């Protein structure tokens, strides 16, 4: 749980957020890039930070929450260390992305409701299209793209990433 405690530590330190706010001149119109930068730092949008951001920009927390929940890139829940994005674009879909999703759900005991493993190691996300349709079905783990992934390969990838942590 090293990651979780690290996040908690950061939470009480708003200096990083202030840096981000200053970088965007504390302009309310820059709220989306600000939230993107905040999320990059914490891997999700902690509630306290959202309120802090709202107050700093002089806009209502409701507006900030409204934006944070509207855009699918933002998450109010902590995400795992490894984010597995399965592309479910048309090309990937017809080439079997749903099978990959099922495999991951089974391997990591995830479901449509539970998308992050309790040890905060993996988060499963489906994305509409990664724009790598020639590689269908495609999977991205953090920044690494894997193309033409089979169910078997998916299993092996999960084992590989798990092994990195042992």
């Amino acid at each position, binding site marked *: 749980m090293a990651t979780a405690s690290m996040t908690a530590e950061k939470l009480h330190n708003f200096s990083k957020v202030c840096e981000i706010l200053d970088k965007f001149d504390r*302009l*309310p*119109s*820059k*709220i*989306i*890039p600000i*939230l*993107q930068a905040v999320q990059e730092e914490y891997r999700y949008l902690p509630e306290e930070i959202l309120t802090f951001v709202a107050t700093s920009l002089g806009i209502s927390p409701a507006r900030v929450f*409204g*934006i944070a929940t*509207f*855009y*699918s*890139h*933002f998450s109010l829940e902590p995400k795992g260390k490894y984010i597995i994005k399965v592309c*479910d*674009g*048309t*090309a990937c*879909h*017809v*080439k079997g992305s749903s*099978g990959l999703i*099922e495999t991951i759900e*089974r391997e990591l005991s995830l479901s449509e409701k539970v998308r992050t493993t309790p040890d905060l190691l993996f988060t499963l996300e489906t*994305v*509409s*299209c*990664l*724009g*790598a*349709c*020639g*590689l*269908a079905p*495609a999977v991205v783990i953090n*920044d690494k*793209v*894997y*193309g033409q992934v089979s*169910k078997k390969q998916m299993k092996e990838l999960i084992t590989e990433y798990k092994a990195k942590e042992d």
Partner: protein
Amino acid sequence: METLEKIKENFENKKACLSHSIIICAGTGCIANGAMEVHAALAQIIKEKNLPLTLTLKEELPETDKDPVLLSKSGCQGFCQVGPLVTIEPDKILYIKVKPEDARDIIEKTILQGEVIDRLLYEEPSTGKSCRNHQEIPFYTRQSRTVLKSCGNIDPEDIGDYIHTDGYKAARDMIMNKSSQEVCDIMQEAGLRGRGGGGFTTGRKWELALKQDSDAKYIICNGDEGDPGAFMDRSVMEGNPHSVLEGMIIAAKACGGTEGQVYVRMEYPLAVERINKAIEEARAMGYLGKGIFGSDFDFDIFVMEGAGAFVCGEASAMTESIMGRRGMPRVKPPRTAEKGLWGKPTVVNNVETLACVPLIINMGEKVYKTTGTSGSPGTKTFALTGHVVNTGLIEVPFGTTLREIIFNIGGGVLNAKGEIDNDDFKAVQIGGPSGGCLIEEHLDIPLDFDSLKSVGAMVGSGGLVVMNKSTCMVQIARFFMKFTQSESCGKCVPCREGTRQILELIDEVTQGHGSQESLTLLEELCETVGETSLCGLGKSAPSPVLSTLKQFRSEWDAHVNDKHCPTGNCKDLVSYSIIADACKGCTACVRVCPVDAISGNRKEAHIIDENKCIRCGACVETCRFEAITVGGNNE
């Protein structure tokens, strides 16, 4: 300021000094297949052989007695299926599926000895003929790459390379020698129509913005390509970012734009990076900022990263998002060209549209009009994917038939086993969530904005997904509806509630609870949502459902009347069983079944307990004797 001609000449001089150029495709597809490792391996061997190496023509070439080798990275070359691609100039050789282990041979044999390595050449699957380069590969020869021409040839991170292909000349000419009205007229005359989907005439949009009286006007490049199954905008932004910037500068000249915004999906990190680099370079050269090209015209461009909302591809929603709000569309008129970002006139153009603009000016509007059809001049890029031999990015003149695209450029249809089998063609989905499915009888229609509309489909963003007979069309309809339902912004009731109800009706069908009445209701609901929704997302959301209902009625009927999914894709309508005669009792299936639904003694036929089975298909994949069948419930 150094003139474009001088920069071009310098670049040419440097190019002439090279012994070889090795261009590695560094598009997303090739990078995923290991292009960077190939690049590193080639650099390593070049160093080992003591050859002078240069990674860019931006800097001075190394001073040696031997001519240096250029090792550069390009944007997507389109043929993603067989990447990583390596092109060698001036020998004009294209190597495919290159691995780091091949680096030594490429340097030792091709670069040093001038030998062609046969095993790395593309082999035409139907004829077995080896193709030495782009000029011999049917995938390329049957296209007419115009917008994509430089993608994959030039170094996207070197403005000099873009200028070398006559880049920024059109922008300079328009700014120095033409009036705004004249620029609008050129586009009108060329008949360029927006490539984002709707096909609105670009020149008319610009003219509308020009006529507005305002102290500020904005040019937005719509790079929020959210359509599943489309990636041409991504490739242009990654492969030739300067062409997009140049298009924006010309658009700014045409309507008096003061500031530009490139709205890019954050899922496209490489595109964001390359566009940012291009803006910096263009600014440093004086092509952006104050007094561009030494004129009194000011224009600068900034990048905004989207945060994952499909509806933001709609112009009015996009302006909301840039202003830091929820991206919800509004009622039109006024059009965004009249009242957009911060209430000022705003032109929103698609990436591909903007990339066309400098090309049209350079070739002349009359020449441009000679390709394509009379209503839709020019070429269109399509992302060809799905069950087809050659997947990738293609560009063809409007008016090309689907038959040519699928069977000649695409190389034919793949069946469920992955073999070429043109009889296995079932449908092609065109235009993403706003488009529709076309079948055999549509294969010879010349593709353009108007002909597609007349058969209930749409050019849309240009996604072309080929499907073979193993595809369930009800599931395809469900797939698109699920997408639009989850991407609906929720502002208007028909879209928010209507798409949800459509999805539920489809679910009823796939789960075996549907009836003819569900289908009638579905059609009515689709028509209502289409007619009453606020923006394009809701208006076109029912299209994929309506088009499958029309083209594949019998398949829908089978789902509701017989509770049977003909392709075996709808899990609730199929059952798994083991053919006793074929089963060897190897227990492989028992071991992979996640719910212990399979039982039986070793070396004896096994059985599946249908009540326990979750229909995951793991057993079918594992069985080496093809002893497990997937059938309809009623069979």
